[in-house]
Structures are given as C-alpha cells and as structure tokens.
C-alpha cells in the first residue's frame, strides 16, 4: 500500500500574458517562495524537486538546468517532466509516488511556462504525426474546434450554454488574485458577440496564453502532521491515455474514453459512487468552454447529453451543488507547464480552506484533473481526511 501523502502548501505567480519584467528563473521564485513560506520550510528542507515545463514552447532545452538556483536544485535530486497539457499533473503525480514510496519525505513540485518567450502554437503543431496529421493540424485551436463540433452534434448543447461556462469562469476568476483574466461584469451576450476564431469556437470560448508558475509542497504523513493544521490529503491518483491518432479515438471530446477510464478508476480508489453528491468542488482542466461541458458528462457529473442542463441550473456555479473551477480555471489562466498543477493547487486550497473570496464552504472532498495531448487525462482526489 502506498504511504499517505499530503499537500501542505502552494504558491503561484500573478499570471499574465507577458512578463517582460522577469526571466524564467526570476518568475519561478515568485511561486516557490510563498509555497515554502506557507509550509514554514526552507528549500534545504526539501528532499527533492519535481519540475515541469514544455521546452519546445519557449525553445529552451533543459531550462530547469539553466534556472537551477531558482528552484533550489543545486546538489539536490530532481526529475524533469514534459508531457503537454498534463505537465503539471505529471509532475505532481511523480512527487506523489516518490513520497508514497518512502524514498522522499518532502518534495517540492514546480511547474512553469513563459509563453511570451516563444511561440506555443507553432510548437503545438509538431504534436501531430509528421506524415499523417501535421499538414492538417493548426495548433490547439483546430483540434478543439473539431472536437467541439462533434460534441455539439452528439449532445445538442448550444452556444449559449457554452457562453455560460465562459461567464462563470471569468467571473470566478475575478475572485482569484492569481487569475490572468478577471471579468466580473462579463455577460453571455459579450461572449456571443466575440469573433469566431475556428468554428464553433469564439475568441471568448478559448483559454488565454499566460506566463506563470506554480509550486506545491507534498509531504509524508509524519511531516504533514507537523507542518499543517489542515493538510489536503491525496486520496487517489489515476492516469489514462487515448490512442495517438485522432482517427483512432473517434468523438474524442464527446466520448473521452481516457477521462472516463481515469475518473472511474479514481472514484473506485477513493470509494466515491456518486461524484456529483460526494465531491464538494472540482478544479478541472477545461481549455475551452465546450470542453468543460463534455467533461461534466465524461467525469460522471451528469448523464450523457445533460451537461447543458447542469450549467443552465447553476449546479456548477459558485453556491451551486458542485462548484467547478472557483479559481476561474484554464479559461482564465493557461501557463501550460503550470496549468494542470494549478488545478491540484487550487483543489488543495479549497480543502485547506484558504481560498479567500473564491473559497467554497465546507470542502471535504475535491477533484482535480489534468488534460493534454492524446486526450491524456490525469485525475486526483484530495480530502481533508487522511483515512
């Protein structure tokens, strides 16, 4: 049996589109410093650092080695991850397994991306197979447009329902001091009026490109009891991949086999039978408005074709039965190497009760997900209870 693992502290930068005032090294420290302060730890107290970044987006190979002082890596064990959208959750999962194995007791996980240093969409185009897919791919946007079209066809969700997701996200973001986009006054009409950038996706339906970093401190049971009065315990971790080629995973968004598989395994591990009732909050990696709706169905929050009703009835709004993305989610902030880690950090913040204006009342159990290339899904259950 894996040993118990808890999150005791998190840190984030104020995410924004262009950090011209700092380089990658300097930006990373802005996330690490508050995380260590919250845990009352020094970097020398950390046994190891897990670090995640998407190198091709900035065009740096091994940026973490160049930035070694920034994350306290000098003469310290580390592992570097690069897995697309899931970088942050791959990095957290590694920290989890290292602590669960007893190899390390205190692990710092760091994710970062400074997209303004490079050209992300060019790099994302090379995700496609060079022979079959690259010539017809157009970064993340084209991919999501195809998936959203299929999902609309299958489920009958409407552009207004997608717009409601955007409004929820950007209004929630206004409560989150770290969020990149904060739009407390945004309306469905505003979203519907924004330009179509790849049918059916409008500019407002899509996440921004952000510069930012996130840090999370994961510790063993003995350390958790010393370091935090209310740690967020990691109850379950699951990962599932789709097939490589689009054609091998039909209806990729409408039927996300990987997300269905990962969350069902996760719920089994955590003893959850009715996620809508038993989860108190979810921080999900949604990327585009339509994706969040499809994910409600795939994560078992509602039956097939019912996602539109979930947002119409306000179930996933703040104050609803199951608030989704109180932080504003990826629709407000996407600093890729950090994004999935922010989902886990925000879920931990909810469990620890330190969410300030974005805090959901009385959170006992939280879901966090990561999503990336190949419809790669990572999922975590966090709990206020170690048992």
């Amino acid at each position, binding site marked *: *049996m*894996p*040993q118990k693992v808890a999150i005791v502290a998190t840190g984030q930068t104020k995410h924004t589109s262009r950090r011209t005032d700092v*380089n990658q090294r300097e930006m990373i420290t802005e996330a690490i410093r508050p995380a260590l302060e919250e845990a009352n730890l020094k970097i020398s107290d950390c*046994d*190891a650092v897990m670090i995640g970044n*998407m*190198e*091709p*987006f900035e*065009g*740096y*190979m*091994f940026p973490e*080695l*160049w930035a*070694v*002082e920034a994350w306290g*890596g*000098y*003469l*310290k*064990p*580390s*592992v*570097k*991850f*690069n*897995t*697309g959208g899931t970088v942050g959750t*791959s990095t957290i999962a*590694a920290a989890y*397994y*290292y602590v*669960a*194995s*007893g*190899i*390390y*007791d205190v692990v710092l996980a760091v994710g970062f991306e400074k997209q303004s*240093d490079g050209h992300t969409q060019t*790099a*994302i185009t*090379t*995700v496609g*197979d*060079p022979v079959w897919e690259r010539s017809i791919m157009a970064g993340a946007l084209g991919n999501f447009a195809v998936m959203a079209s299929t999902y609309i066809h299958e489920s009958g969700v409407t552009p207004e329902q997608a717009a409601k997701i955007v409004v929820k996200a950007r209004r929630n973001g206004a409560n989150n001091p770290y969020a990149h986009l904060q739009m407390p006054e945004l309306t469905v009409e505003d979203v519907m009026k924004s330009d179509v950038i790849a049918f059916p996706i409008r500019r407002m339906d899509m996440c921004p490109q952000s510069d930012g970093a996130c840090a999370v401190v994961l510790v063993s049971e003995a350390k958790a009891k010393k370091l935090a009065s209310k740690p967020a315990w990691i109850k379950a*971790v*699951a*990962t*599932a*991949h*789709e*097939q*490589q080629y689009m054609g091998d995973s039909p209806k990729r968004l409408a039927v996300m*086999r990987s997300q269905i*598989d990962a969350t069902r395994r996760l719920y089994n591990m955590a003893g959850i039978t009715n996620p809508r009732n038993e989860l108190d909050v979810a921080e999900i990696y949604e990327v585009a408005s339509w994706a969040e709706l499809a994910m409600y169905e795939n994560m078992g929050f509602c039956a097939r074709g019912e996602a539109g009703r979930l947002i119409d009835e306000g179930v996933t709004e703040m104050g609803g039965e199951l608030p989704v993305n109180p932080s504003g989610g990826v629709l407000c902030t996407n600093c890729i190497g950090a994004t999935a880690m922010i989902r886990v950090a925000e879920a931990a913040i909810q469990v620890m009760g330190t969410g300030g204006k974005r805090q959901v009342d009385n959170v006992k159990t939280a879901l966090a997900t990561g999503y*990336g*290339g*190949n419809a790669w899904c990572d999922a975590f259950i966090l709990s206020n209870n170690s048992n």
Partner: protein
Amino acid sequence: MNSGSHLDVAIVGAAQTKYESAKSHLAYNELVYEVVRELLETTGVKMAQIHSQITASQDMYDGKTISSMSVNEVVGGYLKSECKVAADGLQALLYGVARVASGAFDYTLVVAHCKESEGKPHPITGSMFDPFVERPLGLDAMLATSMQAERYQTSRGITDDDLATISQRRHRQAARNSFSQRSGDYSVEQIKNSPVLMGRIHELLAGPTSDGACALLLARANEAKRFATKAVWVAGLGNSTDAYWTDRDLTESKALQDAAGRAYRAAGIDNPEKQINVAEVSARFAFEEPLYAEALALSKTKKIHEWIASPDAGPSVNPSGGAITGNPATVVGLTRAIEVYLQLSGQAGEHQVEHAGLGLAHGRDGICGQNHSVVVMRSNSAVQ
C-alpha cells in the same frame, strides 16, 4: 528517506536495439516497438499485466512536441499510466523505481528512445544555453565540451595519448558487444589522427551520432522472485544537479559525487573501488571517463594516470564499450543500466565480467554534465 535496500524493486528483463548511425528505415516508435516486443517475449510478462510506463525522450531531439505521444501505443500506454521524463533515460528508471516501490504498481516498463540522425546537433544542443548572453555567441554542446576537456586535461596533466588509450580499450571491448555501433582495433595513432571535431576532441575520442532505443522491466519483490537469477535488485539510487556550467569548476563533478554518495549510502557501500564489480559510466567523450571515475570514487586510491593505465585493478568499467562507441542522447543512461543488469544476471555474453555481484550505472544530462543519476544494483546471489 529511503533510497536504497528496502525498496524491494528488481529489474527482471531488458532489451536494446543495435545502435546505429542512422536507422533511416525506421521511425522512432518502430524502434520502441522492437524493444518492447522483445522484452515482453523474453520475460513472458503480458502487456495487460503492466499498468505503468515511464518513457524518456527529448522533444528537441525528436522535433516533436510531447514526443512520448508517438510511443504511447507501442509501450502499451492506452488507458494506462504512462509518463514521460524529459531527461536522461536513467532518470526514467529512478522514477519507475519510485512508482513500483510506492506499491501502486506491480510492474513498470521503462523505455528510452532517440534518433539523433534526424536532427542537427548545433541548434538542438545550442538551445540548452543561456538565451541572453551565450546563444548569441553560437555556443553548442560540442564547443562547451571541448572547453571542459581542455580544462580537465590541463588540470590533471592528462595527455591526448592517455585519452586515446581509453578510446582504444573501449572500441576493442565493443567488438564483443553485439549491440554496439562502432568497434575496432584502432591504434593510438589512428585515434589521435582522426579528424578534429572541436578543439582537442577528435572523432575517435567522442561517441558518434547514434540512433536507438532500449527498454527494461521493473517488478515488485513478489513478482520478481519467479525470475530467479534474472532478477537484479535495485540497491541504491542517487540524483543531483550541479550549478550551471559557467558557475562551476568543470574539472570536477560535485553533482556526481553527491548523487553517488546518496546511492552508496543507501546501498551500504563505503569503499566503491573495492566493493563494486562492474560500472557502466556515461562517458560519451574519452575525457569524461576519468572525470566521472574520480567523482564516483572508483579511482580513490590511485592517481588518475595510474587508473587510466591499469583500469582492471578496481571495478570493470564500461565492459560494453560504453557511450564512446555509440549511444544516442537520452538513451545513454538507460543503456548503462541495462548493461549492468546483463552483467549482474549473467546475460552479457561475450563481454560478461566474472563474479559480478554489485554494479553501478551512471547517467548524465545538461551542458558539461550538469545533472547526474546513479543506480547501484545487486545480483540475486549477492542479495542472498
């Protein structure tokens, strides 16, 4: 912390492609398919039994963002827990050990792949350098390495003849390793007179451009037991990162000393020179072998010249021929682990070292070896 003997994790099988200068007839996922298939056949473990995979690859070398996506299918990652380490393959092994030791998985498949032939080394390795000051100067890995070689040779008084002797020995040994890329009975003069690549580094003092893949299977104690002598136990792990290359003395490797110290303590080794029987060191360049042997304390009692002159007095180093005879970046460290596994399980064939009970694999990454990993392994008979 426990990075050693009580991990109860063993390597139970391994497979490699032959390393070649350009496998232009195969895509990199086909290389991986070849080794994974062989690994499943030789171990008898079914893909359905493996729920965890760690792959090591570098997007910049593969020219493909999230380069692991292309191998996901052939490593059995569909609906499974595959993860990619963007670092040397030995890092993937370290993380795989953690996954198995956590109790969450019975097996973890560890894979590394790279086709160096498909990319240009100057822009690829140049992207490791500081973007503000160093990149405009046109630096790349070969240039920085040649400066390090000059520094190291000068500081230790190591001659070009010394390094040619090392290269000569490794290329002779490689002739007995069927996976090796370049082998032969080169004379010291031939090596010294081979074309200059950069500074004092000549063609036969450096590993050639290489394509290949390798895979190994990790198992928990319960599963590993039935593999008998083909199970080799992980006895100690270490990893450490040095300062950026311009911020440290390139004539030593503090990070490797640190990584080795961690692995040795975990494995209960206090005299590596005496206790370790076989060591596979990631030395793509001839000068790196004595540099890293010093950091690994494999040459503690001898001056480095003596060590170069009589290499077999202590542990056998790089009986496979080593990386100087050809292994691609990212794959190198995992190849070292596989070679140690083959030695400790008595499967190394013509290059088998006698009485190998305790072995060491080393992997490195970054400019002038900034990040280092060490794995100490014990044969099944040495454990009992």
